[in-house]
């Protein structure tokens, strides 16, 4: 199933002119507020008409302005999970969930209610009304409701934006399961680097209504030239790792990745579990000699491959650590003092306590490999 979008739309002084394709798995539409993400998914869903362009999902053309095609929203079969849930207040959770099923052709009713209840852990809520649900529960029901309409594509517009950190942590595993277990491709709108790092296989970077870059998420997030858009403070590398074991004496977990082994504050994961973690550039120090007498537990050897060319006092350095890319943020003064340039052998030092727990996620499922 392939989503193909090439649209133009003027909204007041803002102009959206975006073109991208998305395959299976989870595609993140990433960009700052006002970059046109929501307008773009609204066009895909049929809530907004483009001035010009085309939208197609698989073989079905949904919009083609030149040929005068505009499939109305109720016949697009595109699931939409809104930022605010938008559950029907006058219906119970069960009625909300089954709402879309009602309108789906009988032959196409795939996912059973039981399966969705189990996938999202919402069985106990069935007889309640939306007014009595917590924010996290509402979003899970909203996801279930969209799924049960048997969409050929699922749009999620910042489904976690209105939730606090604890609620986000509650829902993220469900979205991961959804990505890996259901065959529905997902377009996920977000401006959170942590969410994208954790969930996305593919990433489309939007800036001022246009696509600035698109491709595998790990690659885009490491591109030094895109840092102004992906957000410098949050920039970092995504590392795929496996749990090797636990160091119970000190309450640590040992992970192995291509770059070497990592020690983190204990994670409740069984040895052998695969996961991905984000190592923020600002948490990485560089040394040209093997550091000694150091509190940091993680020292990874690598070679400098690229330095950002921005004029300011800060330089982002990209490293190749036995095939795994890492990013480090250092001052221009340090670059000068250490003589860093492409080819320099360095030791990257990462404090164990610096890991961004929020971005620790499961590995990409097979369906999500692009």
């Amino acid at each position, binding site marked *: 199933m392939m989503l193909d979008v090439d649209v133009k739309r003027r909204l007041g002084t803002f102009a959206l002119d975006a073109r991208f394709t998305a395959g299976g798995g989870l595609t993140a539409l990433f960009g700052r507020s006002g970059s046109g993400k929501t307008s773009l998914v609204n066009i895909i869903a049929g809530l907004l008409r483009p001035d010009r362009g085309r939208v197609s999902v698989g073989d079905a053309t949904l919009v083609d302005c030149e040929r005068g095609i505009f499939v*109305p*929203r*109720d016949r697009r079969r595109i699931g939409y999970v*809104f930022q605010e849930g938008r559950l029907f207040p006058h219906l119970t959770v069960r009625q909300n969930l089954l709402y879309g099923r009602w*309108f789906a052709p009988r032959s196409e009713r795939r996912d059973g209610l039981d399966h969705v209840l189990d996938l999202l852990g919402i069985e106990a809520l069935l007889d309640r009304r939306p007014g009595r649900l917590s924010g996290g529960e509402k979003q899970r029901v909203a996801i279930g409701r969209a799924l049960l309409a048997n969409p050929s594509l699922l749009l999620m517009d910042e489904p976690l934006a209105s939730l606090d950190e604890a609620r986000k942590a509650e829902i993220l595993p469900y979205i991961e399961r959804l990505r890996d277990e259901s065959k529905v491709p997902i377009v996920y709108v977000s401006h959170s680097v942590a969410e994208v790092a954790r969930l996305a296989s593919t990433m489309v970077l939007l800036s001022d209504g246009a696509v600035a870059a698109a491709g595998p998420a790990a690659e885009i997030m490491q591109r030094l030239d895109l840092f102004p858009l992906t957000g410098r403070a949050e920039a970092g590398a995504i590392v795929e790792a496996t749990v090797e074991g636990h160091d119970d004496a000190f309450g640590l977990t040992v992970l192995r990745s291509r770059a070497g082994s990592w020690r983190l504050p204990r994670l409740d994961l069984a040895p052998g579990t695969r996961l991905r973690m984000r190592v923020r550039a600002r948490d990485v120090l560089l040394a040209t000699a093997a550091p000694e007498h150091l509190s940091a537990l993680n020292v990874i050897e690598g070679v400098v491959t690229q330095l950002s060319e921005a004029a300011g006092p800060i330089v982002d350095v990209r490293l190749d650590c036995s095939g795994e890319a890492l990013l480090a943020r250092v001052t221009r003064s340090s670059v000068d003092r250490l003589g860093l340039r492409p080819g320099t052998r360095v030791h990257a030092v990462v404090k164990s306590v610096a890991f961004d727990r929020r971005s620790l996620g499961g590995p990409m499922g097979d369906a999500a490999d692009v």
Partner: protein
Amino acid sequence: MDWFALSPEEWTAVRLSIWVATVATLVSLPAGIAVAMLLARGRFWGLSLINGLVLLPLILPPVVTGYLLLILFGQKGPIGSFLAAHFGIVFSFRWTGAALACGVMGFPLMVRAIRLSVEAVDTKLEEAAGTLGANRLWVFLTVTLPLIVPGIIAGLILCFAKAMGEFGATITFVSNIPGETQTLPSAIYTFTQVPGGDAGALRLTLVSIVIAMLALVASELLARRANRRLDIE
């Protein structure tokens, strides 16, 4: 308690009033919902003209409204003669005319109540229903309509109350014929015009108060139930 016993004529007026007000209210309802939706959601030139037309009976002296009805819907009136010739519906000096006059007078109140609740409906919920496969009719029936039920109840009660109390337009349009067009207000008015009619007027006044109170309580209960269903916190 003999004093309180209603005479057969008085009973007729009470029954007729309730019947006329009920018919006027229920027949107005579909049109009331349609016009309220149009006024709340419509975006076209001439909307304010329709709005003015709907509100007109509220502002005009009732006698003027009654006279306009007489001109338009009377036996010789363009609409009245057409309806009589093609559908056999006659308004002049019939209870149907009283119901029409009451309906026209109550209509602005009904539309206003429903319109306010339509405006309060979150159109984003309707969008969500659309993405789930519901076409416009189904969105209206399964989302919009259930959400405006409290407004519909309020509109029904307001319209019914107005219809029960309507006097000026009714008496101008269809006169004051006992058993056909003599509703409670007309009957009370008649009693006050004859010597010794005070007792009758007072009895019918009490009846009016009781009916008004019952309608008010009923609406309160219905609205509370509707709100509980919507789980408004």
